[in-house]
């Protein structure tokens, strides 16, 4: 099993519904593959085909779970609101392997899963979606294994009250990233040990990367 699959499995702990749906689909695919294997004697060739099939089936299940986003490569936000879940993305087109959308409360749990899987935090950033009146917080994870696997965890928080729990307990490196995000967007990371301006002057009370910021 590749690292992408493994990580995907691990991340599915966050989303019981998707996991259940997938397990169902996998069972169905397995049954199908078993039937195929019985029918055919060339076991090895069939084996690889069946795993591929299973993967495809899982992917199909995913799209079924998100009727608004039929094709994986397309931007989900454009087609309508995307539901929480793990999405396998095309690395060549996106630069990431897995894309996770979760609730703000779940980021700590996600960070814990990533930490256990041996990932490190590359960056945290915010995006101010002023038209939708919400903010996005994006966590980029990466690992140092021989095969690439980049995971992006994203969540949406209301613009009026931008609060999200901190993950600096799990990833100490997040400390500065969260301070920086607080500088730029005013996102309050609850439980952060020292949420003072990092890049801006000590007394700064403005958040320059907000779309409605004027100096």
């Amino acid at each position, binding site marked *: 099993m590749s690292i992408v699959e493994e990580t995907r499995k691990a991340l599915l702990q966050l989303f019981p519904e998707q996991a259940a749906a997938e397990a169902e689909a996998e069972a169905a695919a397995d049954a199908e593959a078993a039937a195929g294997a019985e029918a055919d004697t060339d076991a090895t060739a069939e084996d690889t085909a069946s795993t591929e099939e299973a993967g495809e089936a899982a992917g199909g299940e995913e799209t079924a779970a998100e009727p608004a986003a039929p094709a994986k490569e397309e931007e989900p936000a454009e087609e309508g609101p995307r539901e929480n879940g793990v999405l396998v993305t095309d690395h060549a087109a996106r630069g990431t392997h897995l894309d996770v959308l979760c609730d703000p409360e779940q980021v700590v749990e996600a960070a814990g899963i990533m930490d256990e899987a041996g990932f490190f935090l590359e960056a945290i950033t915010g995006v101010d979606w002023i038209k939708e009146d919400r903010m996005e917080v994006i966590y980029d994870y990466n690992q*140092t294994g021989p095969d690439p696997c980049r995971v992006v965890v994203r969540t949406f928080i209301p613009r009026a009250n931008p609060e999200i729990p901190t993950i600096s307990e799990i990833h100490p490196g997040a*400390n500065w990233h969260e301070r920086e995000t607080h500088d730029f967007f005013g996102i309050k990371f609850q439980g952060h040990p020292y949420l003072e301006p990092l890049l*801006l002057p000590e007394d700064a009370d403005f958040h*320059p990367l907000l779309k409605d910021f004027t100096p």
Partner: protein
Amino acid sequence: MTVPIQCRPDEVFVLNLGPQHPATHGVLRVKLTMDGEYIVKAEPVLGYIHRMHEKMAEAGSFAQFMPNTARMDYLHALAYNHGYVLAVERAAGIEVPERAEYIRVITVELNRLSSHLLWWAAFLLDLGGFTPLLYAFDDRERILDLLERITGSRLTYCYFRFGGVYNDIDDEFIAGTRDFIKRLRSRLPRMYHDLVTHNIILIKRLKDIGFITPEQCRKYGATGPVARGSGINYDVRKNEPYSVYPEFDFDVPVYTECDSMARYMVRMDEIEQSLRIIEQALDKLPDGPVKAKKVPKILKPAAGDYYAAVEAARGAFGCRLVCDGGKSAYRLKLRSPTFSNLSLFGEVAEGMLLADALAFMGSLDLVIPEIDR
């Protein structure tokens, strides 16, 4: 050498290192709580050269942001060019001709050499050796000459274009690069290693100083030579290949000693590996155009977000581009490697001597404008 610190709170004093201090390579400030010469607590204070690059990306078009990339990490400007260009090309779906990819690799690696040479110079200056600085600059000037011929500038290159590079390289550049490779190969063992690396004072000052465990590297997200000096075999060029790096045969130097000397050796070995890459790229250089045809003047990538990572001289540089279908980036997050590398400093420097802490800081290879962006 770790010494348990036992002091009363009233016996410590706060030493303000920087923002103007010869060892901080720019305008980093470190608030040090000291007990005599021992550091009890070190807290870096950033932001003295925060220049709003990410805000500027939202203000101008994609092409207008190109010069900014060179001004973040001015020592390895072309890697930043490369990372940004990759992200935009990925977003806009632009194919790059093969010759352009080769030229990109050659110039990026040349630039990596100049960056490592400057690090070496500045590091030795931190350790009190002034002469190596001038020797390294001697070699570095030759790289700058080569790059200046084709890019037009000495330091803050803006050479890459979406879908290629600005200028083709000519025979004179190729001949000059080959000469330079020969020259640096002959000077590396004699001048760099005999004079400095094997110097007993240098070894005594770097061995077992600034111990970073692999777990610390992971927790803080350290990459590049810092991680490789701690035994983590991670190089974006190998692990997540981009451009034409898979075509070349090169090694990723990894040392497991985890100390400043290991980081020093990683960079010295990387110089040799970069020379190997350049040599192979010059041998294999294909013919063809250096710019993709039909790249629109005004790019309007489809909405969505895109990520591209490259291996800069200091570690993995990542570029997260969020587009909303407009002609400028909706949000551009630049993941700079030294930002994460420096966040280690506070934890590792605790209990160190001041002199050792500064040697350790030098071994992290900081470029402050890249941290502050």
